[in-house]
């Protein structure tokens, strides 16, 4: 472990220790602010309660990521192939992100119901934008001389896309995907807050209503671990796919 990682780990340990000492020293009630040791304990002890909800949220997030990819990749390609289309679609793309997801969530629940569909769509709406923008930027950043070389070699657009643009844009794509998966939990959890029968967002609302603040924090811990896990998984795949870097 290098010194930057040791430094970060040290800072986190110090902050957790201060939090723990503050809770115990000030004798704060658990329903106001539980100490980190209690949160960790609840996260483990209540794993059988949290686990199924986490699985539901994870499925929504993964499905949201897949849906976002299914939309973002073709969209980036067509916008790259037809710059006029990019100019036409750009305002709608920006508008889709300018509207707070909290505003859209109730509508999606009304339209798609309390099941997973509304949460998947919510996650996808949040994820697809960074992927589309990053991938498009990657395509556009392709070396001018390489583009010229492909033209001179007689390559058509689809050949250039497969052999040049796509591999060239992969690091940008993964950068966008990492941002996407980092915020994917937001879409799913907000959807569950608005209306759901399962999921970590649903469990948080239930625990909050019962003043089980330690359980709320434990769920947040699970969400953080899921987010970190997804982020690391994307990083691992990137390392495999973009091994030539």
């Amino acid at each position, binding site marked *: 472990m290098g010194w930057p990682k040791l430094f970060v780990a040290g800072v986190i340990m110090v902050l957790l220790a201060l939090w723990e000492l503050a809770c115990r020293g000030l004798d704060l009630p658990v329903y106001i602010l539980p100490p980190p040791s209690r949160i960790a304990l609840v996260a483990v002890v209540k794993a059988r309660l949290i686990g199924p909800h986490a699985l539901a949220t994870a499925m929504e997030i993964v499905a949201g990521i897949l849906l976002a990819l299914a939309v973002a990749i073709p969209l980036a390609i067509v916008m790259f192939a037809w710059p006029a289309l990019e100019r036409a679609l750009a305002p709608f793309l920006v508008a889709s992100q300018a509207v707070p997801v909290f505003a859209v969530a109730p509508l999606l629940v009304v339209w798609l119901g309390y099941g997973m569909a509304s949460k998947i769509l919510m996650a996808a709406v949040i994820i697809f934008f960074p992927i589309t923008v990053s991938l498009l930027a990657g395509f556009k950043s392709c*070396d001018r*001389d*390489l583009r*010229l*070389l*492909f*033209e*001179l*070699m*007689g*390559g058509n657009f689809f*050949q250039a896309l497969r*052999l*040049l643009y796509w*591999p060239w844009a992969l690091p940008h794509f993964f950068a966008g995907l990492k941002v996407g998966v980092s915020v994917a939990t937001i879409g799913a959890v907000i959807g569950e807050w608005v209306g759901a029968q399962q999921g970590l967002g649903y469990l948080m609302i239930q625990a909050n209503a019962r003043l089980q603040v330690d359980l709320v924090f434990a769920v947040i811990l699970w969400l953080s671990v899921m987010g970190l896990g997804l982020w690391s998984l994307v990083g691992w795949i990137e390392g495999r796919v973009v091994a*030539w*870097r």
Partner: protein
Amino acid sequence: MLTVADLTKHFDAAPVLDGFSFTLPRNGFTVLIGPSGCGKTTLFDVLTGVVPKDGGTIRWNGRELGHLGTVAAYMQQKDLLLPWLTLAENALLPASLRREKHMAAARERVKSLFARLGLAGFEDHRPATVSGGMRQRCALVRTLMFDRELTLLDEPLSALDAITRRSLQSLLLMLQRDFRRTLLMITHDVEEALLLADRVLVVSAAPMRIIQDLALPTQKPRRPDNPALIALKETVLARLEGELDHGVA
């Protein structure tokens, strides 16, 4: 034969090419040399169709073409190898892109060219794992795999160290002799021009025009310490310095 007549290109009303004309005989090795910024790269951009010409004609073997993009192979100072492909895959790109029916034969050809250019055993290496000289030799194989008689070389050796450069100069001579290519090369190196070319076109500052058309003896390889070559080098350098002074004045 390549015939370029009255080629014109302006950028923001400033003429870079203004009625530029020249001819290249088949299987010849012609080098274009001139001061920086005189428009040599613009000439290649116009010839390859990267930028449209404002006027003039380009004829290849009697046929008038808008540009040479479909009939010329092109090699640059940068090797332009794709880092995600192996050296052999990079060299095979022209054959892959034209969907050659006999890819096995193309692979064999690449293998044989790799052996000839000292790249045998490195077919499966990625560009990042080999030296700059090896990458440039691989780029040379790829240029040959275009299977086009006319080859445009835009300072292909200028980024290399002196030893690698010398070895690649020999390879260029060998390739011209054995593969019967018509070569047009841009370089800033007068000695390189005089060692390799059958003909050297010394050009002026922009708007570019030919100020000296030197036909060189056919005997190759030439030695850089040849007194006649040294005298010629001084003459060309004096012309180029004169152009620079003219540009500064």
